[in-house]
């Protein structure tokens, strides 16, 4: 379902609206978890919780929307996601947790751009990349807006960030 239209050939900067794009990103994420994992994501209450972003999946967007979609979560959350997708116990999940996280990020990015009418045909996605560990920093070569939603999957936080390049 398309819920926001982009004008043809209009620069992204003129179209970006945080109040519209943020809930679209949240909806895109919730739909992927509902359809592929059978899980309803909740709003996350972050007060007092340690920051566990041990797995990071990155998907690049190029074209009418340029940027990077990031999905971050704990090791335990990534294992639970793979377990739900595959219908197997979390303790039996090995490297499938990386694969699952990358695929989920890919589907969120695809679902997000599909909801922005006019973006689909003019925006390509990269193959996902997954980073394991927390000791890294990303540096964008071009400035732009960032939107983030924090949701809860099986009691654990998920950070979904869209960093837009100008």
């Amino acid at each position, binding site marked *: 379902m398309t819920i926001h239209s982009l004008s043809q050939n209009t620069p992204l900067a003129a179209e970006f609206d945080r109040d519209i794009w943020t809930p679209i990103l949240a909806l895109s994420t919730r739909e992927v978890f509902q*359809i*592929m994992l059978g899980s309803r994501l909740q709003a996350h209450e972050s007060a007092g919780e340690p920051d566990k972003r041990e797995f990071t999946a990155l998907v690049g967007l190029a074209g009418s929307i340029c940027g990077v979609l990031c999905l971050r979560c704990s090791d335990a959350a990534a294992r639970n996601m793979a377990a739900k997708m595959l219908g197997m116990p979390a303790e039996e999940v090995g490297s499938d947790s990386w694969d699952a996280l990358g695929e989920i990020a890919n589907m969120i990015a695809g679902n997000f751009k599909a909801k922005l009418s006019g973006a689909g045909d003019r925006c390509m996605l990269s193959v996902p990349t997954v980073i394991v560990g927390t000791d890294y920093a990303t540096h964008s070569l071009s400035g732009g807006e960032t939107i983030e939603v924090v949701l809860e999957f099986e009691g654990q936080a998920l950070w979904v960030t869209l960093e837009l390049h100008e």
Partner: protein
Amino acid sequence: MSQIRALIVDDSSVMRKIVERSLRQAGLDLSVVEAGNGAEALGVLDGNSVDLILSDINMPVMDGLEFVRQLQGIERLRGVPVVMITTEGSESNVVQALSLGAKGYIRKPFTPDQVKEHVLPVLGL
């Protein structure tokens, strides 16, 4: 219903397993071969004949559209139905895939019912 030999092409092993499970849930008696990209799939088809191909589009080495294009150049494989399963669900991708010879198109995320709805007709079931 006789056994269906299916080739599932996706760079995600998790997604290949989900597609296989969805096909089984659709009631198909299956034997499955897998590949992680289009080039690997062409190699698999060199030694196997299949009744059905499900392929992602966005893959490293050789993407799904190029894979379908090359399939059409191989006479014994030209009649094998191909269904694309991909996040790249834009209209231009759908049109391109269908014009290259794909028989169906499923956008990720998908439900098992959507797989059934798109795959059974191309098998004439």
